[in-house]
């Protein structure tokens, strides 16, 4: 029985002509204990997917079953409680509260659960010990290095004993050494039975995952199982065939990753680039006309 089960989930923003499809009828089911990496270019809907899975957001259409419970249409309060008890979030920018100490930050979810002060402190201390930062309990977030801050964030995500950890680019702001530290920590947590989803742009990090999901324009375009310790096959393609970046690429705003990753990305991209080029050309001519007049 999957722990996360999405059926035809869509998320739309805006309405009328300005409708923006962030997720386009995505179906995804994740079993208990999986370690899923989600990859894809910026703006492809990865974060929206994570937010919906993490109950921060509500799908516009579709069904979502979390631990055998239909949660797509929950009311805000119920959603907040389910989020508190089943999901732990780790963000790219750590998102620690700057005015609380490390210990208070870790204890925050417990406070919202209604756990008493002394028990809260004890649990938070245990969790800090687990991530190896018990000596930093009374530091403030701005006194920590990036890697340490992310470990604190992970401790905070874990403190409620959630089944699922969702990490949205947890290593996005970290150097490679800290990234490794954080990823090692996540895989350790995975070993104790948690289900983990993480978003990454770094194909190298798919080594930690048991499954890699590729997204593009709001849809899942590829889904593969991988072995821990190996870079996923599709991601490897991207990793070892990074084309030289040209000025045109930068102008069109297309990441190099996109070209290499699934499908015949080239077909899709090339016309887009041409269009963009045409547009700028048109705009130029228009501008010159304007000045002449």
């Amino acid at each position, binding site marked *: 029985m999957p722990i996360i089960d999405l059926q035809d989930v869509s998320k739309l923003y805006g309405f009328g002509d300005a409708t923006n499809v962030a997720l386009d009828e995505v179906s995804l089911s994740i079993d208990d204990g999986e370690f899923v990496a989600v990859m894809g270019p910026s703006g492809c809907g990865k974060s929206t997917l994570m937010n919906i899975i993490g109950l921060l*957001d509500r799908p516009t259409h579709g069904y979502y079953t979390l631990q055998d419970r239909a949660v797509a249409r929950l009311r805000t309060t119920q959603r*907040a*409680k389910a*989020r508190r*008890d089943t999901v732990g979030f780790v963000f790219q920018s750590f998102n620690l509260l700057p005015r609380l100490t490390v210990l208070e930050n870790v204890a925050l979810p417990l*406070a*919202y659960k209604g756990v008493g*002060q002394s028990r809260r402190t004890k649990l938070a201390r245990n969790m800090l010990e687990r991530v190896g930062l018990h000596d930093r309990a009374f530091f403030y977030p701005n006194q920590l290095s990036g890697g340490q801050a992310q470990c604190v964030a992970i401790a905070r995500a874990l403190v409620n004993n959630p089944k699922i950890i969702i990490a949205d680019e947890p290593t996005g702001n970290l150097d490679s050494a800290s990234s490794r530290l954080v990823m090692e920590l996540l895989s350790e947590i995975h070993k104790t039975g948690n289900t983990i989803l993480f978003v990454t742009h770094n194909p190298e990090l798919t080594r930690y995952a048991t499954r890699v999901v590729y997204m593009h324009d709001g849809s899942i375009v590829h889904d593969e199982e991988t072995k821990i310790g190996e870079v996923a096959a599709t991601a490897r393609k991207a990793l070892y065939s990074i084309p030289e970046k040209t000025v045109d690429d930068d102008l069109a705003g297309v990441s190099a990753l996109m070209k290499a990753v699934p499908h015949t990305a080239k077909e899709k991209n090339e016309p887009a680039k041409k269009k963009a080029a045409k547009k700028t050309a048109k705009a130029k001519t228009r501008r010159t006309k304007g000045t002449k007049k």
Partner: protein
Amino acid sequence: MSSASRGNLKMALNSLRTAKWRSFLTMLGIVIGIVSVVTIVGIGGGMKQQVSNQIGHFGKDLLMVRPGTVTTDVNSKRLLASTDLLFGRTPLNGLTAQDYNTVKNTPGVGPVAPLGVVSGEAKASDGKEMPGNLVIATTPDLPAALNQKMHYGSFFDDDSELSSAVIGQQVAYQLFGQSAPLGKTFTMRGQSFIVRGVLSEFNAPPLSPTGNFDNAIFISYKMAGLITGTTPQFYAILTKPQDNKQLAEVKSSLATSLKKAHGGQSDFSILDQKDSVAMSGGIIDLMTAFISAVAAISLFVGGIGIMNIMLVSVTERMHEIGIRKAVGATNRQILSQFMLESTVLSAVGGVIGVIFSIVVNLLLRVYTSLEPVISWQALAIATGVSIIVGIVFGTAPAIKAAAKDPIEALRHE
């Protein structure tokens, strides 16, 4: 749940501490509002007490005959109708020497002292003047009627020279520069007077310059008639019953005899001390309520200041709200956090206001003749009101914070 709210309280205090200046300025509105309301109510209460103390000093059996009809009911329009603020026209005729005799001849009446104002400036023999002194025409019964003691010398009596005068303590110092100027002379309206006695200090009534008898020269009403060339008019006749148990009987027999003397017209009123207290207390209450209402506006403005700053704070801390929601805070928990913060803000302002009003109270007591009374009820109400202000004006910002979509809030930097 209680542990969570205790954590919230700590967080609220924490956020106030991190923005000290802003919190202080926001509180200032509440502080000023509380100080002004508490101080004004205190001054009003103090004045009422001073008046009743003074009346207690005169004795409970003092009766006051006044010209015209006076209502003791402050809420009725008649009180306002009887005084014309714009033209100073009062529909009162003074009482005369005839009324004095009527009162004196009423059975059961003890000492009778009429009070009439004579205009005239006293000039001492060495040329010292005392502008603004009060000259009162009365009879030898005045000390008995007012329970007033002599400081030096004695009051004039029926046998003494008409030119003898009794002065208040302030006059003694200002006109003669000494505390016991017995036998000294001064002139007034071309007539020379000899100081026969000095009265001991009066219990000064607050906010009543004409009632300051320390600043007064007392002469016989007969003499007053002679130097002004008219029959003296009295603004009041003070009297007491011989037996203080017969207050009510004497009051009613006074009323009948005066009515008879006035041709059946009740164009006078007889007030006992209860009436006087009710009247002056009523006027003071009305004034206090009016000024407090003005002061309460500043409390309201302070509340708006809190709302304003809380709205800014909610916008500034949008990201924090997003984080809190992401780790599982419900809307209600966010709401209570911000409500608590605004309540703490205004409650702390209220407490500071209470402390300040106690200080202001002490300063007023030291530097003015006012004796404000701050009751614990007033302080409790002030604190309560400031807490209510915090809750009322904190609601809108807190609802705004709680209703925020978590994703939008998280995206906010």
